[in-house]
């Protein structure tokens, strides 16, 4: 390095490199300038100066210098390496890899460059490349532990676990007998556990077990050892041994559900779906009874039998389970029980049980059959439970009556208000739900959860401004948007995005959705540091599982939601392009030309000013950031586009949509929504075959789903209306469709009208299926519009008597009814039937603000009064407004007698 320079300058060059490594950038810069004074075109110096400037946030200069340096010295591996580092710092990994490769052509055995390259390769999952580079590193420096481990991990990631085992054993062969030294016990143990997990992965169970026995003394993590052993023994079918290990694990932690599953498997008493014969249930019951004697404190042991017991035994167990928790007051009791509602018949048993308990405490103050007086709070917690039960069953009036009774009893319990808010949300009254959540929040202003819950409800009720002000109460500095963004507060961004979308503000909606997308790319980015760290620290099992997690990262629910949201925005932008672009245009076109020019100049100036401010602030940040070297201060550019206006100005919205669609297709292929969106986007893009592919995916996923039916019919209807093919490619598409259509069972030998009819026959009791069939009927035969509408209106909200509920329950869902209403209004454009439908649903859903139900806040003005008065400081005004509310809630002024104390 710096070899072409005379000794004095060569030393200066070393100073630059050293300063760069120690982050003393100013010093490095000085040295570089000193060299450049004498040798202004010295390539490596130019490069290093660029790299230094890059760290001082002078990007454009950096690139210019590095490129110039490279041009002056194409044969220098330093210049290429620096260029690679520059790209790497900007996350341009593909470019960086190319640069490193060039550098290695010049200096093939440069360890540093090889190491940097390997990091990028694993980051980009260039696994074959990663294996090669790791091999090279090992052959260059075989005495480094990390190189052995790295090579093994590379083979493992490249789906060759067996080879990885061989490498690790070869590595062990290089070790002395007394290895490891005192301070490396943990690392060595981790390596052994990693090797054993590899053996297990390969199915070499006996060898894995043998290895475990041989190396037991050298493994530090005893718990992981035991768990690993149990898993292997179980796989080997050595159940008695397994049982012993699982029982000893339970002895260490009798609330770990995985241990119970393992134990049940060893006893041949485990079913994935929870289906057991009566004999098995009896044996399970006996098992847990004996465990309960041993571990009286374990709550898992008490809870698990509720999952497999049935009938009277279930009732008895549930009774025993619930009572002490009601006495104690456990607010989470219902969410603990709620999975049971998915099992046939248990909801009805629970209902009977809860009501029985409520009745007994009300009349005697004791639980049934007990003479022990319950504390006064028990009835309140029981009402709380009953209320949540009714909420879950969709019986909102009953749920609200019970929760009100509980609030009347003890008006200071915050959970009561939170749950009341949730019931109102489910019942369809979002503003009232937000109000209740705000009341709950006001009762403990130091509780972040209550604050977040309230913000969520406000967003659902489209009170975005209020939500922002409330959220800000818990962020630092008040610069809330950045702060929430920095904290990757995705629920907030998603909920705001959805609210803005509902309100038609596509710019801000997109801005929020894209912010979430950015978080996910940041998360992908975040793994970078671990590639070297984990190999060094030997946390290999955790490392590999982190990499596997990262491979799946974009299938996470939040990403899915954000991508779906963004695609919906782009589709809307495509369908109504005028809205965004011409809005500004309109404003301008109304002005005379001279003023128009002025206005444009003004806009430009404003933009320039904002930009300048942003840059100034950046400078400030970086200078202060470097002076306080300990704290890493992010330079924060001012948001030039707070309302997402620029995002609306994409030229081809569907192209953007396709970008996110691809991510969905590769990461959420099992979701109907993915393929429905693919259908929507590709139909608009006239990509017939891709749309057809989407239809096929949908049919494969769920041919009975109304949306899938909708896409199927819509597709073939659209195709049949196209003009006959002219170009070759059109003919090709045509031929494919002609060949494929007979393979679709729904359509074979049927016209679309017939297919639609038979779909309707098959699902004639379901509202959403009828609605889909009706819409398609209208599409296929527009003159049958009235028949189609009648199809919808004739749907019956069959009250499900008997089978699972004591009281008749609405089987229609509120959201479905709203969708049907929109269908009548927007697609059929039939106000008569829409308003008839609305009136009918208002009866089914009296709390729904959408349908203006008689109990909703849209109708009862008491509550809606204060939703429209945004608080000035987020607290005081709210509370003022709330006192009215709380008055009304705690309500029913006590008579004078209640004044008595004690």
């Amino acid at each position, binding site marked *: 390095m710096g070899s072409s320079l005379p000794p004095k300058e060569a030393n200066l060059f070393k100073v630059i490199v050293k300063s760069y490594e120690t982050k003393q950038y100013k010093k490095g810069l000085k040295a570089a300038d000193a060299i450049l004074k004498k040798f202004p075109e010295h390539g490596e110096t130019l490069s290093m100066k660029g790299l230094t400037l890059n760290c001082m946030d002078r990007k454009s200069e950096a690139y210019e210098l590095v490129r110039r340096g490279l041009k002056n010295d194409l044969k220098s591996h330093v210049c290429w390496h620096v260029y690679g580092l520059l790209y790497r710092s900007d996350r341009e990994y593909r470019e960086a890899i190319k640069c490193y490769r060039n550098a290695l052509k010049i200096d093939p055995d440069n360890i540093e460059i090889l190491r940097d390259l390997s990091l990028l390769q694993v980051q980009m999952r260039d696994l074959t490349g990663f294996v090669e580079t790791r091999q090279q590193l090992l052959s260059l420096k075989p005495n480094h532990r990390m190189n052995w481990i790295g090579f093994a991990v590379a083979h493992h990631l490249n789906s060759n676990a067996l080879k990885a085992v061989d490498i690790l054993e070869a590595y062990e062969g290089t070790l002395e007998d007394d290895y490891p030294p005192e301070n490396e016990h943990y690392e060595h143990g981790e390596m052994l556990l990693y090797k054993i997990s590899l053996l297990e992965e390969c199915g070499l169970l006996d060898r894995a077990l043998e290895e475990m026995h041989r190396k037991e003394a050298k493994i530090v993590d005893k718990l992981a050892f035991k768990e690993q052993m149990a898993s292997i023994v179980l796989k080997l079918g050595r159940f008695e041994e397994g049982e012993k290990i699982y029982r000893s694990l339970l002895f260490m932690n009798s609330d770990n559900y995985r241990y119970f599953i393992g134990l049940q498997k060893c006893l041949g008493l485990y079913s994935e779906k929870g289906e057991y014969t009566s004999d098995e249930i009896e044996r399970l019951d006996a098992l847990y009874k004996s465990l309960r004697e041993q571990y009286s404190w374990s709550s898992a042991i008490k809870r698990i039998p509720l999952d497999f017991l049935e009938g009277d035994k279930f009732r008895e167990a549930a009774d025993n389970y619930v009572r002490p928790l009601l006495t*104690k*007051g456990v607010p989470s009791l219902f969410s603990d029980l709620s999975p049971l509602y998915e099992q046939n018949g248990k909801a009805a048993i629970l209902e009977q049980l809860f009501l029985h308990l409520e009745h007994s405490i009300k009349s005697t103050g004791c639980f049934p059959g007990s003479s022990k*007086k319950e*504390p*006064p*709070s028990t*009835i*309140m917690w029981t009402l709380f439970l009953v209320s949540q039960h009714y909420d879950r069953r969709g019986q909102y009036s009953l749920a609200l009556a019970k929760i009100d009774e509980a609030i009347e*009893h*003890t*008006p*200071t*319990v915050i959970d009561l208000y939170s749950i009341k808010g949730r019931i109102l949300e489910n019942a369809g009254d979002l503003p009232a739900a937000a109000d209740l959540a705000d009341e709950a929040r*006001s*009762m*403990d*202003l*130091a509780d972040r959860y209550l604050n977040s819950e309230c913000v969520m409800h406000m967003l659902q009720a489209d009170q975005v401004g209020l939500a922002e002000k409330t959220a800000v109460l818990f962020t630092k500095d008040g610069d809330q948007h950045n702060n929430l963004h920095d904290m990757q507060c995705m629920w907030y961004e998603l909920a705001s995005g959805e609210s803005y979308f509902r309100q038609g503000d596509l710019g801000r909606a997109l801005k929020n959705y894209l912010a979430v997308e950015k978080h996910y790319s940041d998360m992908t980015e975040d793994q970078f540091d671990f590639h070297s760290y984990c190999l060094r620290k030997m946390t290999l099992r955790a490392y590999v599982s982190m990499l596997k997690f990262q491979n799946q990262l974009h299938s996470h629910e939040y990403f899915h939601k954000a991508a779906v949201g963004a695609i919906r925005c782009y589709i809307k932008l495509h369908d109504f392009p005028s809205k965004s672009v011409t809005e500004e245009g309109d404003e301008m076109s109304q002005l005379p030309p001279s003023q128009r020019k002025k206005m444009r100049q003004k806009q430009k100036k404003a933009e320039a000013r904002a930009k300048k401010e942003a840059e100034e602030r950046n400078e400030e940040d970086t200078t202060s950031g470097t002076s306080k070297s300990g704290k890493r201060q992010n330079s924060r550019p001012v948001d030039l586009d707070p309302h997402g206006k620029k995002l609306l100005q994409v030229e081809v919205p569907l192209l953007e949509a396709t970008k996110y669609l691809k991510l969905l297709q590769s990461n959420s292929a099992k979701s109907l929504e993915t393929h429905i969106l693919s259908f929507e986007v590709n139909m608009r893009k006239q990509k017939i075959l891709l749309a057809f592919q989407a239809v096929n995916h949908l049919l494969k996923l769920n041919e009975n789903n109304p949306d899938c039916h909708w896409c199927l019919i819509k597709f073939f209807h659209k195709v049949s209306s196209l003009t006959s093919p002219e170009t070759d490619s059109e003919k090709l598409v045509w031929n494919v469709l002609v060949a494929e259509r007979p393979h679709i069972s729904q359509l074979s030998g049927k016209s679309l009208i017939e297919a639609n009819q038979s779909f309707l026959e098959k699902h004639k009791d379901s509202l959403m299926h009828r609605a889909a069939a009706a819409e398609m009927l209208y599409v296929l035969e527009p003159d049958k519009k009235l028949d189609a509408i009648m199809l919808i209106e004739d749907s019956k909200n069959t009250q499900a008597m008997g089978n699972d509920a004591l009281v008749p329950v609405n089987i229609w869902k509120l959201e479905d009814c709203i969708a049907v209403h929109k269908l009548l209004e927007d697609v059929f454009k039939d106000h008569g039937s829409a308003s008839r439908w609305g009136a009918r649903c208002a009866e089914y859903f009296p709390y729904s603000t959408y349908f203006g139900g008689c109990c909703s806040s849209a109708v009862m003005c008491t509550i809606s009064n204060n939703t429209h008065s945004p608080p000035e400081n987020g607290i005081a005004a709210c*509370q003022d407004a709330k*006192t009215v509310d*709380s*008055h009304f809630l*705690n309500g029913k*002024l*006590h008579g*004078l007698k*209640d*004044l*008595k*104390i*004690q």
Partner: protein
Amino acid sequence: MGVGEGGGEMAAAAISLDGVRDKNVMQLKKLNTALFPVRYNDKYYADALASGDFTKLAYFSDICVGSIACRLEKKEGGAICVYIMTLGVLAPYRGLGVGTKLLNHVLDLSHQQNIWDIYLHVQTNNDDAIAFYKKFGFEITDTIRNYYMNIRPPDCFVLSKVVAQPHAKK
């Protein structure tokens, strides 16, 4: 009355006191709304917060069920007296010793701080409350006509705790 009876022994362990701060003052408001026919204004809450440890919330197994709210007043000559603005317990939680615990707390605190003058107002027909306070050494010292505006009867008694001040025995 009622103190130590019934569920007293069960509950005594489960009752605890906590201060009132601006973050949880809503709890006090909720209690007052439920307990008293009078709506209290901002001054009441400011006084309560200012009184520090003289205003307390009582918790029964983590549920806020009662409160005592006091105002510290300066008499002529600089001595301080304690005015108990409100003392109340939610109906279902009465008879568990919550009120006693709250009142004893204020009495003890006054004692510690050498405050010997404690008083309060009670509606004239509230026999239970009068009996309760008498047990703690309070006496009726005055009657104020038309003290209340919107409730009947409008009169109240003044109850004061007469304390034999321990004249520094040396």
